[in-house]
């Protein structure tokens, strides 16, 4: 499978450093936030889209990305996208909500971990891990424009 070169795990941090430079320039003592520049907005988007791509690859069971991220999202051969093409039926816009499979009030990250552990028989992620944030980025991005409806079953 052809893949774009992934940024290393350090890359998001480096990109954020670049953004900090663009925002604050060489005068960190500036009192007011400067107006956004096109370069700055582009840099923000690049950081986000890099995470979306990593999440997309994890979501589709890409072995090289899993290795790079140190994850084991499935032991059955099933990838997330095999039940959720285009991240459908993920309903990220409904969280947080009572999730009946988990039998408690849950976040999207809770549900991602449930799917990894139960149907996929994989190893659940630290909710604040880079892999979890990337999966979350992809799922939200693929569902962008959907109507927010938290709590809906």
């Amino acid at each position: 499978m052809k893949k774009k070169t992934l940024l290393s795990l350090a890359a998001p941090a480096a990109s954020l450093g670049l953004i900090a430079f663009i925002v604050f320039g060489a005068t960190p003592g500036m009192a007011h936030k400067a107006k956004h520049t096109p370069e700055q907005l582009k840099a923000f988007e690049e950081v986000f889209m890099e995470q979306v791509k990593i999440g997309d690859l994890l979501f589709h069971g890409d072995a090289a990305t899993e290795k790079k991220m140190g994850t084991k999202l499935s032991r059955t051969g099933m990838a997330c996208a095999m039940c959720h093409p285009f991240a459908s039926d993920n309903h990220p816009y409904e969280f947080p909500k009572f999730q009946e499979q988990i039998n408690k009030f849950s976040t999207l990250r809770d549900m991602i971990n449930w799917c990894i552990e139960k149907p996929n028989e994989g190893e659940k992620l630290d909710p604040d891990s880079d892999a979890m944030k990337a999966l979350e980025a992809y799922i939200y991005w693929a569902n962008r424009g959907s109507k927010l409806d938290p709590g809906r079953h």
Partner: protein
Amino acid sequence: MCKQDQMDKKLVSKTVPPGGDPDRTNGITRRIFLRRSLAAGAVAGAAASGLFPFIQTIDVAYGAEPFRFAWISDTHLYPRTLNTRFVEKAERAVNDVKAMKPAPDFMIFGGDLAQLGDPVELQLGADILKGIRVKKYYIPGEHDWYLDMGAAWEKLFGKPNWTFDHKGVRFIGLDTISRGPDYWSVKKMSPQERMGHMATLDGSVAGPWAGVGKDQLDWLGRTLSDWPKDKPVILFSHNPLYEYYPPWNFWIRDWQEVQEALKPYSNVTNIHGHTHQVLYNEIGRMRSIGMLATSWTWPYAPTGVPKLTTPLVRVDPGDHFDGVGWGNLAVTAAGKVNYEYMMWRKDVFATTKVDSGTGDNDNQILHPRIADLP
């Protein structure tokens, strides 16, 4: 036109290259297609009412003698060492078919026996299906084919398209998967890479791979040429023979040509796999029935679900036997075809919006993936 429709239209125009090969053009919008199917759907009153019986009955005139046949498809077997769940479910379907009383006249396997076309997976499937003693017919799915371009499948199961007559019905098995565009040569993909892209339903690399092709269309015409126009024809295919959702290849790209070839025949029923969900549609005079997978359910596509479909109930992702199963079909002496979704749960169809596989998605807008783009 709603936002999702507009986006999907854009996506279809990207999926289907314009002009050139007539097999790959698609000049009709989904909306026109739906209107047309509804206009033709006068006999589908029961379907449109939303009160589907568990057994769905459709008219097929001149069924001379009653008989029954079984459908199993979309087992998506991995090697037993990797995934035992799919094996268990395939075995359960086989045991159910073996227990049918009276025994079915034959069984049709509707494609995607294997997950990644591995000869080990195909052989495992053949071994599991050996338990069924009645005559078996096979059509291929894309997951069976693109590792070795059908070599192992054909060695085990023979020609991918065929025809036979049985008790007053002409049965035709179509190959809708082997004529995909060559997306691998220029990129020098390994067979595994080629298979990997084909096995990714929402990927964009394999393109509009589903189709019957000009050569098979000619064969279909010849096969039907000596058959009376009013006698029943039952077509088996892996993909649906209409445009449901091209980005996931829930269609064949030359469906209009196929419909044209079938136009003179007044009693045509298509039974297909691939979509892993309860589906019903009518195009012209052809009825189309989508069967369950034994492996897992696909969600309904964001647009294009036929209006005549009463959706599958939302299933429990924690129960791997939920939402899957096989098909029990009967042609009756009174000239009816009964089909029954043999799902391993009591409720098959959604009766309320909150439990519906489509009604639940009012707020959902989806976008195609990007990580496999060049």
